[in-house]
């Protein structure tokens, strides 16, 4: 996105006399005034690195996120559900592409980004390291995981970095269908036979806490929050977004007749918020470190897909080069 191949013009004479301090001040005041930063604008290196890290993690999450749901495409319970699930998984792939493009505007190549994922040096959202043993998991993912993702992503539509913000606008538009189809699956199951209802409850039991953890560590322990807020990459803290998510999701669970698996959860009249029980951050850390139920399987699947597709990528390129050579000869 946004023509990163254009570094030939003027990069060498970058603001001859202006020193780094002035550039940084000018940058920050632009951000403070809610102006957007575009790819060729001057930006502090730490801002660039933070964005590359965050956008690529986000992109990897979309790509790996195709796997838990892809698991159910061949076994979706009806043609309608199958068509919907294929469309959703295709969207996730598309979101990954938008985000890789946005990351590439910061001067990192698509190949480098993919290598970081496949080598295991780049992170992706730990939620995708949980398994999807039942059809209800597809419903729970749409409802809760995509719900949490939307909550996280809407503020990024106003992120200070233009290409990331624009990619996010596109993604948020598409994400809403994901959440609604998930809720519809949960609703169908919750209102179905007692066994189907149990299946929905079981999925909620397994996905609730991992979804809550998607918002990241508590504000007190989140090391990037303050700087990211100053740069307007982030607009709300982890805990603020988590609270918002819980406040809107608990009534939805009640509507479904399902029980949120948190014995300490209660409505607080004074603050007009739900108060939730303690989060097991040890589990979060473990999954993040690579010890979740599916970490190894997810990466292996990605690597295999990448390796199996290599000959296609190379053949397509070779064919295009041959065509070009033929055209020049004919001319």
């Amino acid at each position, binding site marked *: *996105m946004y023509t990163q191949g254009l570094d030939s*013009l003027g990069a060498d004479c970058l603001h001859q006399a202006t020193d780094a301090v002035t550039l940084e001040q000018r940058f920050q005041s632009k951000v403070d005034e809610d102006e957007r930063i575009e790819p060729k604008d001057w930006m502090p290196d730490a801002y660039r690195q933070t964005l590359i890290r965050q956008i690529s993690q986000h992109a990897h999450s979309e790509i790996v996120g195709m796997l838990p749901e892809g698991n159910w495409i061949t076994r979706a319970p009806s043609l309608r559900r199958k068509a919907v699930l294929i469309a959703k998984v295709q*969207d996730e792939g598309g979101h990954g592409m938008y985000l890789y493009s946005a990351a590439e505007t910061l001067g990192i190549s*698509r190949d480098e980004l993919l290598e970081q994922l496949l080598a295991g040096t780049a992170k992706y959202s730990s939620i995708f390291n949980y398994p999807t043993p039942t059809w209800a998991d597809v419903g729970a993912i749409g409802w809760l995981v995509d719900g949490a993702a939307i909550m996280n992503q809407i503020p990024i539509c106003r992120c200070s970095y233009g290409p990331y913000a624009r990619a996010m606008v596109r993604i948020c538009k598409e994400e809403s269908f994901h959440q609604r189809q998930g809720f519809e699956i949960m609703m169908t199951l919750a209102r179905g036979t007692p066994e189907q209802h149990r299946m929905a409850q079981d999925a909620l039991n397994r996905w609730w806490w991992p979804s809550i953890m998607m918002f990241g560590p508590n504000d007190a322990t989140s090391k990037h929050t303050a700087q990211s807020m100053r740069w307007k990459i982030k607009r709300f803290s982890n805990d603020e977004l988590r609270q918002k998510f819980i406040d809107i999701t608990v009534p939805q669970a009640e509507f479904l007749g399902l029980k949120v698996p948190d014995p300490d959860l209660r409505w607080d009249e004074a603050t007009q918020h739900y108060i939730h029980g303690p989060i097991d951050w040890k589990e979060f850390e473990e999954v993040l470190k690579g010890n979740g139920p599916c970490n190894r399987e997810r990466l292996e699947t990605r690597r295999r897909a990448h390796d199996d597709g290599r000959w296609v990528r*190379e053949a*397509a390129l070779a064919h295009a080069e041959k065509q070009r050579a033929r055209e020049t000869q004919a001319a």
Partner: protein
Amino acid sequence: MSQQRKQWPLYEVFIRARSGLEHKHVGSIHAVDARQAVEHARDLYTRRQEGVSIWVVRSSDITASDPGDAEALFEPAKDKIYRHPTFYSIPDEVKNL
């Protein structure tokens, strides 16, 4: 890793939302050639009927102005407010002007 892999080149994608509107930049895509770029752009950027026409152009073929020159290029227009209709005061009783 020994493979001296070549990346698929990058194309910028422009889409006309419906006839009567101009093509608008929507993002970019990697493809081996222009024809494949159009095919991939169709899959990536028009899954919900966002367009009726696609243009692609190699990113490296675009020449852009330098943000560092923005002042020199665009500031001179700032004080030429007489180029705008509101610069001229016309009595209220004059209609259709």
